[in-house]
């Protein structure tokens, strides 16, 4: 793909070296290294418990690194708290949306403007991009449908005008129609040069918008490659940790 070529020549934006993240004694991410170039879209796939969510939270600053470094735009952010990373241009749409249930849609968006970077995204432009939110501005987030919540969560992350957008389990718990809607709006939303790291159970869908696919298993990267270079069988094998084809079905 031309987009992938372009990304390869761009400068590295996010550099992770030997990153280890722990949940108590359990090593959820074990010494992974990753370089993401500006404008690149990466799909992170893997089974439950592979460490994908923890890795995204580690990049966003919601999970403290036990070892290794995270460098963003040449700055070591390993020890920076989450809110400072937002100011630098890293934003996470967390798993399960995690909206502030007692705040209205508009309030959910407005709490994110404190560390907003200059850019096209404002409360109004987000609502323009997700028209379904327009009539819901003053409604409490707890009362929204799954798709509406996801749109609000994406919008809340976009408000900061991130240069690196981390999306965790976008389609989980959404009706198929809603997934369709979220992904189609996502394409237009992210098509402006911002870098994206995407986690989704739905490998096929995630792979369609990604330049590069990385497969995680038990806290490590087990497979990595440009989207076109990897076969479905390879991904499936890596996903389940098999050395031979897992057979038909997936």
């Amino acid at each position, binding site marked *: 793909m031309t987009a992938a070529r372009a990304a390869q020549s761009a400068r590295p934006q996010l550099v992770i070296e030997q990153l280890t993240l722990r949940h108590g004694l359990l090593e959820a991410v074990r010494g992974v290294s990753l370089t993401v170039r500006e404008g690149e879209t990466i799909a992170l796939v893997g089974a439950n418990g592979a460490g994908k969510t923890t890795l995204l939270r580690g990049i966003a600053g919601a999970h403290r690194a036990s070892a290794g470094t995270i460098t963003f735009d040449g700055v070591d952010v390993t020890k920076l708290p*989450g809110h400072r990373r937002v100011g630098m241009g890293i*934003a996470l749409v967390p798993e399960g949306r995690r909206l502030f249930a007692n705040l209205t849609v508009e309030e959910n968006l407005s709490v994110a403007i404190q560390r907003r970077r200059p850019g096209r995204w404002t409360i109004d432009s987000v609502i323009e991009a997700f028209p379904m939110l327009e009539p819901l501005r003053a409604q409490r987030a707890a009362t929204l449908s799954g798709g509406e919540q996801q749109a609000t969560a994406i919008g809340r992350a976009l408000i900061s005008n991130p240069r690196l957008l981390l999306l965790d389990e976008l389609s989980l718990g959404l009706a198929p129609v809603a997934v369709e809607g979220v992904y189609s709006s996502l394409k237009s939303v992210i098509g402006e040069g911002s870098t994206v790291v995407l986690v989704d159970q739905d490998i096929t869908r995630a792979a369609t918008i990604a330049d590069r696919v990385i497969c995680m298993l038990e806290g490590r990267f087990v497979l990595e490659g440009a989207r076109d270079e990897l076969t479905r069988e390879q991904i499936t094998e890596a996903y389940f940790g098999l050395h031979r084809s897992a057979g038909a079905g997936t």
Partner: protein
Amino acid sequence: MTWVNDVIQGILLGGYYGIIACGLALMFGVMRIINLAHGDIAVLGAYLIYLLLEHWNVSPLIGLLPVLPVMLLLGYLLQRLVLQRSLRSGLLTPLLATFGLSIVIQNVLEQTFSPDVRSLGQDTGSLVTAAWKINSEISISALSTLIFGAAVLIFAGVQLFLSRTNAGRRMRATAEDPDTAELVGIDSRSVYAWATAVAVAIATVGGLALALRSSFFPYSGPDQLIFAFEAVVIGGLGSSLWGALLGGIVLGVAQTIGAQINPEYSILAGHIVFLVVLISPRGGLLTLRSARGARRALPTVTT
């Protein structure tokens, strides 16, 4: 018809309890911690106002103005230096740390100001004695009315702050989910520090009210903490900010009616109402025992 007077006096007294409870409820709502030094901080505020009166002859009501920013700063530092650290090490640590702080404040006050009982009431001129006499049994004191009015203003102010300003919305967001708040760019430590600063400042107003309407000494703090806590629990434990004022009013009415039966029963009557509310299935006037659920703080301010 003396009971009508009792209820009126009780409601007005409730204004004072509401002020004391407001800061406690705010800190509980935002950080889920109860500051066991809250009452002592209120008393500390009263002593600072007393200090201005003694040395520069500043009237207590005027004295509040310079003391407020000092107490704001003190609250900010309290959070940054003590509470923030204690929050990291679990639920018990803030309790133990603030209890230690309470002992320190009481004894520092005694060392500095002697254990004498003081009152600032006589230094505000006619305010303390002024009253509207409705009939032979009902008379409404100007001071009680002023304190009640201050309580309503404080609650309204906090509510407006929480619902209308971005800083207030960030406070509510952090109260609900501090991890996610960080992810959208909110500095939760700063939010906590400001919440504590505001709570301490409001406690100072409470301390002044205490000093005007009755008296204080270095060990008055624990009683004020208990009254504040009772008001917060009766009002529904952080499920609503206004609940704290309502709880304060219930407590005030219980105490004045108890005192009517026998002056010794005043405080006990308040304790009993508190325990009865606790035993009742709903456990609070305005709550569905939300403290048991997830982190739901200050939710009603949205409506």
